[in-house]
């Protein structure tokens, strides 16, 4: 009898164990009927994906068509290491945009854990790991010893900020900093005269131009616009107001960008020819107008009011045009300009968001910008053709034609490509400034101790999907990476992708992802992290579309529109 009871007990235990499906542990396991992913629910309440035994379940972002006005139709994780971007129209700048740091990838789990708002604690794959952000004082990073690329040669990187060039130089000369940014032009000589320091010229692509709205007379006459373009000595402006490394802009787009400087260069300084043109247009003695600007320092226009006064003097001297210089509040100036309401002459410029000719030409002359009045349909059509041509070699003659058309139509005339400069201690090895993006500290070496970098201002947040200020982007670039990035000469290079290649239509880009990459929190990078990071930024209805301001301005601006935006 006793033996029978034991047998019954053993049989019951065996049945219970079989029913549980696991005789070893306490986990509760379910398997999908279609052989799909197996999810194990551990007794501690956490869930773990059992990837090794199951096929990858890829996430996808589908806009449901292209009627929403944006450029991305869908993004799909087709395999653990493959993501497919389907575009609404061809985009030759796709890779250049992809490399921009707002499109960096973070772990899907981290974005969920932070409610789509990892403002102070981003998790990336970059060469530096964020240690601490002491608000108001500094950001401290340590070298990522598990970095998939070359591990930095030093252990600690410190970001600090001072708002004046003089203060930053004091930091450098006192040994408190190894590398500082944004020198004032008047400080170049100080750096060059000190053997302990090195001046690093920054060839960031930008342009300063003098623009006209052709809806307002007399600028509705192309001869007037051309006369002014020929009547201003641009070299004099460069020599007087711009720092070393700046140059007269012969084209709108700086030549560091592919296909930028095709076609005829802009008009040479020719006051006699300009006066003749003006007389032909009916203004032999000139006319009265205004020069509007904002008094805001930019690399492309370091001394706005002084430059405006010089242009005013040149117009009076060379062409008999009497212009009144009007300095406007920055926001009001931009608003009036962008709405097409600005009469007279305006002074403005552009700094590259990403290194591609479309970033310069399409925004200004692609037909959607009323700042110059009515754009020539020929220019609009030519740029539209360029924007459909993915192959740079095939695009070359198109941009040659576009530049020539812009030169003929003269919606503006380019004046200067401004140069900026950074500085470093002479002991810093490989110190350099990349023309696009932040300084690449991972490739430098301070020699001994920590590497201290001083920039203009404190970052607003470190969730750069939803930031636009250069200081935030600069800090993000040290810890975060996207599928592509910018190389030391501004070239677009693969980062988390090994390659993104278009199909024959130019609409479908397949990105092969780098394998074996881990995030700073130890999790493994895969295609779903890419889709989630992009969905958070691009899909306004995504539950994690939170960010800092919630605007995700670069997603909206560079990819046409946000999906599901109200």
């Amino acid at each position, binding site marked *: 009898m006793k033996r029978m009871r034991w047998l019954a007990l053993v049989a019951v235990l065996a049945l219970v164990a079989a029913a549980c499906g696991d005789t070893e542990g306490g986990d509760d396991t379910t398997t999908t009927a279609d052989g799909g992913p197996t999810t194990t629910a551990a007794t501690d309440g956490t869930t773990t994906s059992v990837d090794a035994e199951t096929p990858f379940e890829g996430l996808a972002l589908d806009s449901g068509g292209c009627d929403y006005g944006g450029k991305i139709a869908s993004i799909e994780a087709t395999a653990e290491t493959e993501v497919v971007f389907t575009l609404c129209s061809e985009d030759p700048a796709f890779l250049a945009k992809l490399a921009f740091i707002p499109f960096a990838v973070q772990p899907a789990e981290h974005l969920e854990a932070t409610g789509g708002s990892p403002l102070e604690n981003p998790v990336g794959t970059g060469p530096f790991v964020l240690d601490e952000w002491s*608000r108001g*004082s500094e950001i401290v990073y340590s070298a990522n010893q598990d970095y998939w690329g070359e591990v930095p040669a030093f252990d600690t990187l410190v970001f600090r900020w001072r708002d004046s060039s003089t203060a930053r130089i004091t930091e450098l000369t*006192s040994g408190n900093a190894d590398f500082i940014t944004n020198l004032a032009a008047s400080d170049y000589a100080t750096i060059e005269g000190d053997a302990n320091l090195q001046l690093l010229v920054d060839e960031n692509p930008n342009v300063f131009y003098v623009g006209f709205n052709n809806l307002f007379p007399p600028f509705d006459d192309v001869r007037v616009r051309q006369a002014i373009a020929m009547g201003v000595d641009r070299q004099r402006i460069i020599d007087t107001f711009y720092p070393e490394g700046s140059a007269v802009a012969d084209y709108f787009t700086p030549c560091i960008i592919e296909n930028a400087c095709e076609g005829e260069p802009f008009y040479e300084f020719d006051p006699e020819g300009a006066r003749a043109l003006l007389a032909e247009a009916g203004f032999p003695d000139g006319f009265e107008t205004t020069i509007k600007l904002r008094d805001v320092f930019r690399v492309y226009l370091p001394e706005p009011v002084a430059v405006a006064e010089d242009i005013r003097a040149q117009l009076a001297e060379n062409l008999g045009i009497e212009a009144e210089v009007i300095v406007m509040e920055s926001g009001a100036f931009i608003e009036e300009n962008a709405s097409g309401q600005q009469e007279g002459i305006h002074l403005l410029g552009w700094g590259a968001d990403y290194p591609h000719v479309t970033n310069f030409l399409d925004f200004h002359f692609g037909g959607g910008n009323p700042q110059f009045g009515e754009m020539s349909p020929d220019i609009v059509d030519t740029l539209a053709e360029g924007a459909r041509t993915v192959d740079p070699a095939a695009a070359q003659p198109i941009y040659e034609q576009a530049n020539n058309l812009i030169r003929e139509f003269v919606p503006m005339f380019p004046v200067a490509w401004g140069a900026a400069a950074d500085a470093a201690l002479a002991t810093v090895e490989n110190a350099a400034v990349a023309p696009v993006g932040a300084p690449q500290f991972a490739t430098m070496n301070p020699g001994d101790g920590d590497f201290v970098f001083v920039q203009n201002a404190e970052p607003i*947040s470190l969730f750069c999907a939803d930031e636009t200020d250069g200081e935030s982007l600069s800090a993000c670039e040290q810890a975060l990476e996207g599928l592509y990035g910018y190389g030391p000469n501004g070239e677009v290079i693969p980062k988390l992708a090994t390659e993104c290649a278009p199909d024959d239509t130019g609409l479908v880009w397949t990105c092969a992802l780098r394998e074996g990459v881990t995030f700073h929190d130890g999790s493994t990078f895969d295609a779903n992290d890419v889709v989630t990071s992009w969905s958070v930024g691009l899909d306004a209805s995504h539950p994690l579309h939170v960010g800092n301001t919630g605007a995700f301005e670069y997603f909206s601006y560079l990819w046409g529109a946000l999906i599901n935006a109200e």
Partner: protein
Amino acid sequence: MIGYILRRLLIAIPVLIGVLVVVFLLLRLVPGEPCTAILGERASPEACERFNAANGLNEPVYVQLAIYAGSAITGDFGESIRFSRPVSQIIIERLPVTLELAGAALTAAVVVGIPLGIAAARRHNTGVDVAAMTFANVGVSMPIFWLGLLLAYLFAVVLLGTPLALPPSGTLSPGSRPLPFFEVWGVELSDGFLANLAEFVSNMTITNTLISAQWSIFWDGVRHMILPAVTLATIPIAIIARMTRSSLLDVLGREYIRTARAKGAGERRVIRRHALRNAMLPVVTIIGLQLGGLLGGAVLTETVFGLAGVGTALFEAITARDFPIIQGFTFVIAATYVIVNLLVDISYGYLDPRVRLE
């Protein structure tokens, strides 16, 4: 006395409400939109529309004011538009830095300014008087930013490598991170007033490291504080010295001072026991006003020395049109002024028993 204090506090309420309303309305008159200041000048009208809606900026001004005032009364100054963080949290981070700087500067001003004024008064019309007043006049007319840059250059660059070298910026050396005093003490704090107060105190670098005996960081903090404190103290030193001198000269000419001297009291006793206390009344008023001025006027010093205090927070917020931060910090500065003035008034009763606060 208690009744007096209560009455003064009641009077402060309309003053603070006035500050709140005036600052709120003035900010709406300033040209420039928060949207373009924060999202960048390339922000689309649609993006700005969404931004304004999310931040309540598309409501009529009087509605915005009513919403803000309702929250501010409960001590909730809202969230920074730029940082998406509670303004009260930013005050907890920034105000301690300014308080510590102002405290150090005021201490230096009192310790130097009063003896300087006394010395000038005692040796009236001598070389000491002329030298002290020349120093005071130079100090009061010295542009703070210029003096700050000069001192930073002198002590951080020219004297680099000598024992006199001092750091040009920040509260601590790069990468130096003190532990909060309560962690050193092993005290665990949950959320609430005490936790906020502890965090507030721990953000005063020198105080925090002093009470938690983190000596190397403490001395690092002191070294970083010297130049900004000296810079900020220059004008108060000059003002206090001049006021002390003139007030003391006035008192020293009174008949009871002559009587004290006639009775054989020594000069030191005459100054200390009979003259100084009576001469202190206007000096205390000036010191009180200076403290308020130091809190609100540390903008330049904090900017020159890269200190993350109230001044730099306000400056950055004004640039970015971050209304909640500007409103919150202005309110705190105004409240500090009110409290300091109250303390000055109370001190009158102690210094001069003839003053009846009732």
